[in-house]
């Protein structure tokens, strides 16, 4: 059982790391036609790896029409790194309780912002995976986001019932 929860923790952490990388790194499009084409695209993509333009993420934040532009720019630099650090903390079980709390807070704020934007008629296609998940509908974004929240809450509850593990992981 303990092993299964570790796997859940690694998966949730990996989701956060992946979500942050979609905002920090400029991914080249990868084709899934054949293994050779896929491998070649990966190699080419790695050769051309570069920082994504943080202004793109700032514009995504601005699309929610909640925060002033300047604050959105600051968050565009900060949030991806917070996500990656939380994700790594969940994977390697360091500062674990803090990472769980921050991951939950990030997700709740994001879901709240998305729902508020939708309620005001703002059509936002960019989800927590940057523009990689542009094709997903709002409903699917919500399903994904709530699944992540459920994962974080489950991990938190399990850790609450196993304080010795939490204590060890916090060191």
């Amino acid at each position, binding site marked *: 059982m303990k092993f299964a929860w570790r796997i859940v923790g690694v998966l949730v952490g990996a989701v956060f790391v992946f979500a942050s990388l979609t905002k920090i790194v400029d991914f080249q499009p990868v084709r899934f036609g054949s293994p050779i084409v896929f491998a070649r695209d990966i190699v080419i993509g790695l050769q051309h790896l570069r920082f994504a333009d943080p202004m793109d993420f700032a*514009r995504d934040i601005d699309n929610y029409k909640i925060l002033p*532009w300047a604050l959105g720019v600051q968050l565009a630099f900060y949030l991806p790194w*917070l996500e990656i650090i939380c994700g790594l903390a969940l994977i390697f079980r360091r500062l*674990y309780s803090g990472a769980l709390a921050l991951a939950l807070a990030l997700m709740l704020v994001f879901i709240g912002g998305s729902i508020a934007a939708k309620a005001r008629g703002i059509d936002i296609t960019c989800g927590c995976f940057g523009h990689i998940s542009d094709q997903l509908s709002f409903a699917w974004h919500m399903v994904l986001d709530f699944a992540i929240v459920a994962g974080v809450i489950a991990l938190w509850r399990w850790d609450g019932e196993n304080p010795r593990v939490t204590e060890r992981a916090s060191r």
Partner: protein
Amino acid sequence: MRSLLRQGVLLLCLALLPAAGEALYFRDRISWHSRVAESEMVAVDLARNWGASAIWVDARPDADFERDHVPGAISLNEDRWNELLPQFLQQQWSPEKKVVVYCSSQSCNLAGDVARRLREEAKLPNDIRVLKGGWEEWLRTRK
């Protein structure tokens, strides 16, 4: 609870370091005042002085364009991007001309988004600017 707070604060602080590094790396490309960099904007007076050497692009929805628009402007909005872009390229576009994109006001995002798509997706080599203050500013200065 204290441990949770301590860990949370530590993680928040840890994230500041790479974020500050990235901000330093991109310091020349940050636009703090609006989503369109100052260098990518143009004032109404200057854009008017460009006369025939500028193409005016209206990024507002069709209904707004039909109601009224800058004389000679063509409609190119994101709602009908795939339909209007080829028309624009075939009928109006010229590589030597400047392109002035506008939407309803200073706070609207449509002009900035259309200008960016013309640069990045259509890969136009033109000097593409967003009109400062948009249609509202055009109307104000016309009177």
